[in-house]
């Protein structure tokens, strides 16, 4: 049983490994994807897009009080 699982895992690994190694124009695309994800999550999200309510309040009650206050001003 153990060997069967290992064989299958190895097959899956080889499938992806060979697939990535055999890429031609796909390599360029992966570089673009990785740069894009880095810019989105490590620059934009961290420095420009913090969640407004999470950054100001700790609890849901505080958040809802604030929103109601904003909506009924």
């Amino acid at each position: 049983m153990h060997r069967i699982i290992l064989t299958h895992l190895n097959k899956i690994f080889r499938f992806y490994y060979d697939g990535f190694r055999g890429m031609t124009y796909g390599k360029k695309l992966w570089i673009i994807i990785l740069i894009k994800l880095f810019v989105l999550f490590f620059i934009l999200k961290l420095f420009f897009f913090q969640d407004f309510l999470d950054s100001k309040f700790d609890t849901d009650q505080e958040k809802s009080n604030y929103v109601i206050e904003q909506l009924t001003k």
Partner: protein
Amino acid sequence: MENIDLGLVDWSRAQFALTAMYHWVFVPLTLGLAFIVAIMESIYVKTGKEEWKKITLFWMKLFGINFAIGVATGIILEFEFGTNWSNYSWFVGDIFGAPLAIEGIMAFFLESTFIAVMFFGWNKVSKKFHLLSSWLVAFGANLSALWILVANAWMQNPVGMRFNPDTARNEMENFWEVLLSPTAVNKFLHTVTSGYVLAALFVLGVSAWFLLKKREQLFAKRSMVVAATFGLFSTLFLVVTGDESARHIATIQPMKFAAMEALYDGQNNAPLVAIGILELPQDPEHPNPREFAYKIEIPNMLSYMAFLSPRAFVPGINDLINGNPEKEIISYYEKIRRGKLAIQALKNYKSAQKSGDAALEEESLKIFETHYPYFGYGYYDNPDKLIPNVPISFYSFRIMVILGVHFGILFMVILYFLYKRKLEKMKWLLWVSILTVPLAYIASEAGWVLAEVGRQPWVIQDLMPTLSAVSKIDQTSVQITFWLFAAIFTTLLIAEIKIMLTQIKKGPNEGGH
């Protein structure tokens, strides 16, 4: 609302529009090309002819480029919800949570697992399993679009929820009502089908280029047969869903319907303006034009389009603003009054809770719940501010429809000349096919412009206008990120076009993935 910074509202809207429109540059091609590739591969598996494998591989390559460049561009919209639109985000949190979570888990894993088989699996898995993977990628991509379109449809027609004044959130009461509301069903079908038409035109345009260059003629013509057939059926379905959408808009968003027709005074036997030019407004206080400089009308068509009866009354902008008791239309003045009552009642409810005044709490809640359907109107004093931009709504609708007719005719003409085996000689038609590719994007974006500009000022129809949805953040930071996004998306678009053109020029004989 006091001290609303309209500059902040406008910049936040501009930023959202920019990101949504750029995101939509990538999405429709993915939605449609995935199905076209799956159809081509099905023909390959059925016939066993290597030419069809070559065709499948080439379009799969272009699908992969578009998918890779476009993937995760939509995540920026979610960033913006939390940062720029926090009141809105909180207000709708529970409704959006479920559809978007399902999107993340189900569709993403379906796509990302089977897309690997699609690209890496040739000669490693059986032909049938590979074909199944291609179809699952197509369905996965479309399923992914389903959930975000359901969320958008809920904003246009909020159903299946109840507002909880203790948490300030709308809570889902009936998931199926949200998922299967006529607005959601129509929006999904109409939007994804527009993607199929766009992808079909893309395949036609690229194939036409090969024919003009006298390269890969068999490949190009076979691709065009699949694309034009798929595109023609999609266009016909698009007409049906568009017609359904118009009827829903007439009922659920009558102001949007009146704006897209520039109809100020309602009438029975209302004609449809097939082609029209609006006069430039003279009064800067009223920027929406009220008269036509030129128009060609189809008698009774608007009444029929809205209510399936040529005699039906179609309310105009003035009927909605001033009310029309004969037609049982409540005026915006009355809606504003009711909205203000709802806002005040919510305020009283919260203060009664604090002071422990149970009687006032109960009474306020009753008033609030009675008038909640008009809650958003309470933020306005002047009903003119509740009229969307008429020229943008009017022209975007016509651009979408006129181009849609052009696409349908083009598919038919291409199929006719393919059948007559004369297509490669029709140079003008090949050029029209190439030049129609950007028109497909314009039509698709025009559809979204109509949907979103036409429903202004609402973020959530009747309940929340944009001015009460924004976060109180620094306007400068929104401006900075607007230009950052403009730069990032433009770079991605240039990269997409450059890589695509390189691969197209190489043609279908160059393998690899």
